[in-house]
């Protein structure tokens, strides 16, 4: 685990301890897949500065690497060049590395102690995938977990295709400036401003948390974390960061990719209706709802949360089942907005055609047009 | 009318009904005083009948057509509006006729020198008869069961 390694900073980080935090989240997408600059999302998240405390901010962007869309874009943090060399050696053994480059950053006075930030466009070597009888996706998942848990001073911040996570320690708007996100164009952006209750922020611990092309930004503290984590471990997910966001991401991955549940059903697992409501449902719906709670009871995310899940195919925003955290949604033309606060939407879309507060447990689904399935590779 | 019924399947034969019947009809209505300081304490109006594991508490049935009332030579026994068979102690002369005619043996002689009868009066004035409220196993109940 990362935390067990030597670090200059002796204070505990994610993975060593569990760190509760409050947050701001925002997500913006164009349902037609039209690209727009990162400036909008920075503007939106910055209005919620009070919801963060400068100890973590980040963005996920989809559609930003059209030239390398068939490659997994591996965004990485390294603590030292030595750490980087070790990982690069490993990557070369297992992947075709199309390109490796430093992610361009700008000098921002308030952003300090940044690690070495690199990106690699890679493909798993086909013969190795065949050898271990895994799909490339499955192989990637295992490799990312392996790198994060076994390589000293190295951390994968994202690993999906045609997408990337840009995160760090600082207020989100400063992080956005640091990464020069205005110069990227994507069709879907999510952002996160963090308010951890203890510990200095750690670059790897900032959000979004990602796995393949899933990215999750989350505001809340899930009281069922221990249950969710044990359940995930049963399916060989290693929750090394001890964060709710990580658990939520793995749950989405398991439900959607591995168990191939429809998106609405997966959302129902995370925020299921109460038994009282289930009893009142029509027979067929009731049967499904009962079975879901029976089988996936340990997947219920219990406690306050609002989550935005980003993926190549669109985004989903969802609240806990008694709406203990804020979430607002809005629409204007092809644009869909979700955020912790309405102000964060109005800031970038002054007159939306529709603004609403989603009900507890009711997902807001923004599907990229002409996409049937949420599972990128089955 | 509301009557006292025995549920012999739950009677544990402890005789607390008898003990508390005495207390309920005593002067002090305090159990220790009744037994320690009232040498002329009343006789119990309820008796536990026992034969092997079978036992039950028994007291006046307050019959619809009570033969004791018919037989009473002084008019001491009467049935009131609620249906309770009561004995007016001032009129009772202790002729024991009622005792001989009661088909259930539910009437007793008073303890000691007093030449009077005693019988269950459903603890009139109390919310529930003493024997019922003090039964530890709900083996005596006071309820309306309609016509018998």
């Amino acid at each position, binding site marked *: 685990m990362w935390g067990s390694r030597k670090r200059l900073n002796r204070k505990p980080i994610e993975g060593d301890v569990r760190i509760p935090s409050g947050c701001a989240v925002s997500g913006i997408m164009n349902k037609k897949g039209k690209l727009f600059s990162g400036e909008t999302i920075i503007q939106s998240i910055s209005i919620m500065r009070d919801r963060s405390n400068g100890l973590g901010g980040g963005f996920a962007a989809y559609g930003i690497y059209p030239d390398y869309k068939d490659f997994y874009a591996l965004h990485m943090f390294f603590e030292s060049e030595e750490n980087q060399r070790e990982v690069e050696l490993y990557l070369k053994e297992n992947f075709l590395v199309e390109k490796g480059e430093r992610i361009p950053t700008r000098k921002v006075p308030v952003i300090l102690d940044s690690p070495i930030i690199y990106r690699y466009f890679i493909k798993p070597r086909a013969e190795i995938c065949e050898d271990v009888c895994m799909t490339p996706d499955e192989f990637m998942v295992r490799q990312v977990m392996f790198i994060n848990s076994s390589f000293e001073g190295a951390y994968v911040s994202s690993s999906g295709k045609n997408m990337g996570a840009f995160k760090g320690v600082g207020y989100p708007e400063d992080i956005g400036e640091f990464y020069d996100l205005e110069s990227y164009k994507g069709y879907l952006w999510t952002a996160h401003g963090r308010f951890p209750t203890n510990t200095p922020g750690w670059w790897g611990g900032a959000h979004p948390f990602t796995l393949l092309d899933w990215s999750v930004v989350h505001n809340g503290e899930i009281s*069922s974390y*221990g249950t969710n984590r*044990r359940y995930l471990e049963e399916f060989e997910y290693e929750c090394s960061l001890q964060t709710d966001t990580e658990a939520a991401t793995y749950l989405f991955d398991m439900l959607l990719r591995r168990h*191939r549940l429809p998106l609405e059903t997966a959302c129902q697992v995370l925020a299921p209706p109460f038994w009282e409501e289930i009893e009142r449902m029509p027979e067929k719906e009731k049967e499904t709802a009962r079975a879901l709670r*029976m089988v996936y009871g340990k997947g219920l995310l219990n406690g306050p949360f609002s989550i935005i899940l980003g993926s190549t195919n669109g985004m989903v925003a969802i609240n806990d089942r008694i709406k203990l955290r804020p979430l607002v949604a809005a629409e204007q033309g092809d644009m869909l907005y979700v955020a912790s606060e309405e102000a964060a939407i109005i800031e970038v879309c002054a007159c939306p055609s529709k603004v609403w507060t989603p009900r507890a447990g009711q997902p807001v689904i923004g599907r990229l047009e002409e996409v049937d399935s949420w599972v990128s590779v089955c | 009318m509301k009557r006292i019924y025995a549920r012999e399947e739950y009677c544990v*034969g402890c005789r607390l009904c008898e003990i508390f019947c005495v207390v309920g009809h005593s002067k002090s209505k305090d159990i220790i005083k009744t037994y320690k300081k009232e040498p002329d304490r009343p006789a119990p109006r309820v008796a536990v009948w026992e034969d*092997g594991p079978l036992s039950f508490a028994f007291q006046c049935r307050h019959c619809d057509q009570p033969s004791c009332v018919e037989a009473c030579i002084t008019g001491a026994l009467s049935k009131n509006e609620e249906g309770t068979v009561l004995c007016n102690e001032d009129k009772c002369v202790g002729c024991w006729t009622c005792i001989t005619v009661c088909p259930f043996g539910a009437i007793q002689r008073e303890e000691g020198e007093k030449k009077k009868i005693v019988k269950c009066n459903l603890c009139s004035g109390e919310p529930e008869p003493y024997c019922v409220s003090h039964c530890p196993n709900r083996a005596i109940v006071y309820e309306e069961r309609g016509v018998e």
Partner: protein
Amino acid sequence: MGFSMLAPEYRVDRDKDRCIDCKVCVTQCPYDVHYFDEEEEKVFAREENCVNCHRCVVLCPTRALIIRKYPLEFRENSAWKDIDIRQLQKQAETGGILLSGMGNPKPLPVFWDKILLNASQVTNPSIDPLREPMELKTFLGRKPERLEIGCDGSLKTKISPQLELSAPVMFSAMSFGSISLNACRVLAEAAEQLGIYYNTGEGGLHQSLFKFADHTVVQVASGRFGVNSEYLKIGAGIEIKIGQGAKPGIGGHLPGEKVREEVAATRMIPLGTDAISPAPHHDIYSIEDLRQLIFALKEASDYEKPVSVKIAAVHNVAAIASGIARAGADIITIDGFRGGTGAAPTRIRDNVGIPIEFAISAVDNRLKEEGIRNQVSVVAAGSIRNSADIVKAVALGADAVYIGTAALLAMGCHLCRKCYMGKCSWGIATQQPHLVKRLNPEIGRERLVNLITGWKHEIKEILGGMGINAIDSLRGNRHMLRGVDLSSRELDILGIKAAGE
């Protein structure tokens, strides 16, 4: 009895200022302690017979009685404590195996009391169960690894039969024979009213209780008492009893004097014969044999009932539980070393087995590591005393718990631990008609329903405090637990952190 070196265990203190010589104590003591001396016109006590069952104390109308430990001081000796000497004296007099009733009373650590629970403060809100829904519904039975749901949201996976509980608690296996029919009736009626289940134990199911079959788990033990096809088909679930926490490695014992007419008929054995269950199932000498019995029972019940396998928590419990899951059991029941019994050899009860707290943790870990934890249900038993114990058991990894002793206490048991004498003064562990009637099932049911209703409220309060509104989110949620006064090894095995960490 002639001369005995054994001094009485208890002393009966009768307050003469209070005693009215009403003889209630005399009528109520089944152990022949109190007697009325006609000459003296006073009640006296033969103290050597007293077992401290409290029947006389509770029924005495003037509160004149106090039972105390007999003030006999043995010469101080840390190795030979009073109990050791007394037990030895008893054996020297009788030459027999020492017998005991109820669970292990020895001063071994109760780990429940060394585990503390969490509550929310600031970063996540606690939930108020008086104002918000709070769900305790629990399903026991085999779950598929994943569900297949059609695009229209329809369910494509068939789910195996389940037991549906309104709260994660059931009444343990206590056979008709070891306890009275009235006591069985209390369990059945309360289970029905509460929306949970009771377990018949190994004594079959009395005809008069058939109407509660939907809330009954029928047990099949090594003696096969009362097992027939109707029995297997009528219950909501079937449990194979391999072992019992109070006496791992040996079978049930019911002395012939408890085998009266109804018990004999229900067990399908001759009147008055000892009902001694063999130590093992003679058709199960290995795990593959267990598989055969599990499927024989499923076959006999048309695959309509979940099958549970109950074992005692012994050293290798995790591996055994894993084997049971793989043998096809839907529910694994684990009975800890403090589990109760109607009769067990004292030395076995007090020395064999491991604490249930460790067993739950070990089993939950093993099944998780093997990736099958979510597919089977784990029920923990043995010394669950209150709602907090239930919460801790669930957080350690149990799906539900069985309670036995607690249920009997609610009915009136005062834990005198003389069940094996068959003279239970509270009408529970007896078949003597004049004692059986002391338990009015109506009162027993009310008290038991009250107990569980109170516990449900408490569990909801505790969950709400943790910020959780469904019991599902407590399962295996060891983050909610912290240990005090535990070694780091013990903390590791329990999978919890120390308080303050």
